[in-house]
């Protein structure tokens, strides 16, 4: 089966390709133009932009905390407009099924759920397996679990730490490792209410910094392609910019990824002691090449914050709107679910401006990633509007016009002229995420890449253009046409598969028997538990 996408404006930064041309697909892969080849199917992409399928590196799309948010907030999706019928579970609101469909319609073909509790890995993967069309991946959370903290406290060897991290990644079918407010969830169980980078976890006597550095080094030694994914301390607090800057400085030449930097871009200036510190943070990022970040942009409206930063969520419970929440102390991190409405008031406007400033002031699109930290800053369905704000200064000005001037005065946003180009968008949402995650088979349109292709009809209204792709191909299958799903298929969860160390498995077995009265196999699962054909796709570690 040979497919030819013809006449489109091809934008592929990975190969520096830009210009009108053809793209050929055979057997689910991009191929070189066949000599004298005759396409079985030709798709006319004239007047369109052709990019690789987009990759979202940080979106909370499945797992225990996301599902608890669904339980907490049935009213959030009860009012969803009816959607086309005659599709399986087509009318579900905030469901796994809708998640896959809505992402695909925007041209996204791979999405990373960034916060999987290792003990709930099966639950997470069952949800991900029910998300159609797109490929998925997850990051395993470490850094608040007793086993790791005890090892650090007891001066375990690097090899032993690596064996544990490697076992966790392999057993949970993760693509990488995330640390969330390192040590704070454990400290919260000891009634500690604030926790910063150099604070020490009671009982263990190890600092947050030590946990981050331990995991960062282990991820690097194990050859896990994605650098340690860090959710810093003090999220959302005035003055958190100092914490983020200190964490960036702690990278010390070794790759580190900071998640949703917007939520740390706050200074303490002004009469409300809350201001934008984005310019300063952007400068720090610009001068620290080993660091990558994603934004976590805030967009106005109702959402729900879903985070394994249980200490932060506990603190935020008073802001819940509507007034209900769930705070869960887990075996490691746990989580907090707090519904929230971002309003265009002073604080909301500062947050909105901080995100955009970071996008626009961090100069290298290979190191800044496009996220709203769905659903924390905004649902991912707000992406088209966010593309518009990045690519159109007038749209930014128009949006800012209704916001409090006192909030914008704390920010440099209105003085920034930069508008993202299509090439930069393609880097930020395709080529760079693939590189960051170690996914060499996607994020580009070179021969051999899997045929994940998004075709957008050019339109001055960027939000409209990115909101409804003209065509989307997943693994060479046409799945979206004119913004509507045309074909359902099941993607895979991309995972690393480091070989487990047998001694570590025995040690973990003993640990679970001793401390939980249960065998280790209560916490692990075979692939067959997912009950879907080929649920996983393996990604190699760096050798």
């Amino acid at each position, binding site marked *: 089966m040979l497919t030819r996408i013809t006449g489109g404006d091809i934008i592929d930064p990975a190969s520096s390709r830009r210009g009108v041309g053809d793209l050929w697909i055979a057997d689910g892969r991009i191929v070189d133009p066949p000599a004298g080849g005759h396409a079985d199917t030709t798709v006319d992409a004239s007047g369109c932009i052709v990019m690789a399928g987009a990759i979202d590196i940080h979106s909370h799309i499945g797992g225990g905390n996301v*599902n608890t948010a669904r339980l907490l907030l049935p009213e959030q999706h009860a009012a969803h407009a009816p959607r086309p019928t005659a599709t399986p579970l087509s009318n579900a609101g905030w469901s796994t099924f809708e998640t896959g469909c809505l992402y695909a319609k925007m041209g996204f073909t791979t999405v990373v759920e960034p916060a999987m509790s290792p*003990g709930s890995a099966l639950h997470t993967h069952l949800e991900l397996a029910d998300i159609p069309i797109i490929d998925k991946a997850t990051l395993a959370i470490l850094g608040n679990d007793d086993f790791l903290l005890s090892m650090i406290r007891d001066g375990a060897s690097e090899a032993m730490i690596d064996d544990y991290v490697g076992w966790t990644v392999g057993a949970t079918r993760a693509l990488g490792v995330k640390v969330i407010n390192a040590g704070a969830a454990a400290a919260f169980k000891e009634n500690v209410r604030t926790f910063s980078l150099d604070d020490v976890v009671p009982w263990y006597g190890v600092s947050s910094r030590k946990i981050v550095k331990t995991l960062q080094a282990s991820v690097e030694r194990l050859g896990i392609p994605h650098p340690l994914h860090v959710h810093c301390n003090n999220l959302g607090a005035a003055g958190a910019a100092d914490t983020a800057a200190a964490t960036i400085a702690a990278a010390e030449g070794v790759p580190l990824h900071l998640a949703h930097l917007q939520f740390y871009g706050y200074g303490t200036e002004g009469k409300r002691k809350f201001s934008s510190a984005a310019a300063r943070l952007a400068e720090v990022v610009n001068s620290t090449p080993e660091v990558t970040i994603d934004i976590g942009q805030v967009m106005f409206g109702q959402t729900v914050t879903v985070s394994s930063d249980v200490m932060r969520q506990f603190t935020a419970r008073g802001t819940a709107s509507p007034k209900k929440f769930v705070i869960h102390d887990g075996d490691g991190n746990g989580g907090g679910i707090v519904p929230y409405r971002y309003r265009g008031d002073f604080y909301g406007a500062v947050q909105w401006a901080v995100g955009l400033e970071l996008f626009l002031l961090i100069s290298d699109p290979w190191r800044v990633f496009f996220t709203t930290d769905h659903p924390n800053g905004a649902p991912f369905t707000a992406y088209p509007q966010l593309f518009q704000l990045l690519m159109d200064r007038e749209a930014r000005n128009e949006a800012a016009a209704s916001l409090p001037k006192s909030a914008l005065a704390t920010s440099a946003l209105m003085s920034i002229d930069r508008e993202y180009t299509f090439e930069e968008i393609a880097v930020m949402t395709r080529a760079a995420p693939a590189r960051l995650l170690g996914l060499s088979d996607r994020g580009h349109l070179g021969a051999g890449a899997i045929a994940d292709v998004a075709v957008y009809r050019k339109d001055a209204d960027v939000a409209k253009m990115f909101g409804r792709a003209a065509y989307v191909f997943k693994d060479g299958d046409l799945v979206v046409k004119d913004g509507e799903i045309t074909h359902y298929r099941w993607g895979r969860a991309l995972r690393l598969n480091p070989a487990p160390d047998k001694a570590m498995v025995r040690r973990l077995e003993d640990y679970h028997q001793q401390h939980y009265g249960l065998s280790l196999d*209560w916490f692990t699962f075979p692939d067959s538990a997912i009950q879907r054909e080929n649920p996983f796709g393996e990604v190699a570690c760096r050798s």
Partner: protein
Amino acid sequence: MAVAWIGNRETLVERAAEHAARLLESSRCPVFSFDTDIHGTRAAIALAEKVGGAYDHVDGAGLARETEFFTGRGGMTVAPGEARRRADVVAIVGELPSEHHDLVRELARTAPDLSATEARHLFLIGDGKPGASGLPAASKATRLSCDQAGLAATLAALRAAVAGRQVAKSVSNFQRFAKALEIARFPVFLFSGHGADGLALEMLQGLVADLNRKSRASSVHLPASESGWGSSLASAWMTGFPMRCGFARGVPEFDPWRLDVARMLGAGEADLHVRIAASADRLPPRRSGTRLVALVKTATPVGGAAITIAVGVPGIDHDSVAYCARTGTLRAAAATAASEMPSAALALGMIASHLGGVRTPC
């Protein structure tokens, strides 16, 4: 062994599945009640979506109270494993389902290892029988009760007393509880919708919230039904809603009163009942004329059923994935006595394959 019947007549599973599909197609108001694992639930919900049916757990009442705990106001919970390791005070709220009694006994037998206080003090809230909480007879649990006032009133009085407010009826042994709280690092309350009504759960979470103002405390949710809570989780991710959900209007709707399947059957609203469980015991009363499709483990046709399909029991006849209160999440379990009986998921998928529309996701 025959594995399917149309009425009392033995038939092939394929033929029974096709016949069930025809019944579902012609049904005005099909309802599903089930007690099965995650994959059985996924298949049942997918089938309900195809035919516009409503679905519920076979013991939906306790689960509905627990669901309301989440949808109504939320609260603070802790993983069972963390409770085992940290809880220096364990207070059991009312009666707990017997499937959790092993955990209770284990908590009574062990001491916290992640706590400076190396002992665990046990309390029993309400007037329930000690055996109904799972506590061994020899355990030294202290009763906190409020003179037959009921569980909700006892919790309300306990909350008020902890806050230093006056109460009309005092709580027995309150001073002992207050003293334990004074030195406790991580008190934990065990609760279930099985033995606590909505008001009791609200009072409990109010007490937990009050304690967390200055110190730490939490609660362990021990579901009225483990399989039922697993089904609620699967329902939430598949439709956005917990159980007592339906597709009659083409979109998923959640209504804990209207879509109470036992109520729908009793009121004669449903004309077809699909039952998926280990057995056909405890079928809810249904009006005459309401047909029954039973997917149960049986060697004989279910009395009064239009169609019976014999299916295996998850975790026994075939591998399963189900909610596990010991770990507080889903667990994969291998079959303990593998058999050739089809799983409910397989049988439901066969029924769905005879219906039109897009292939279901399960």
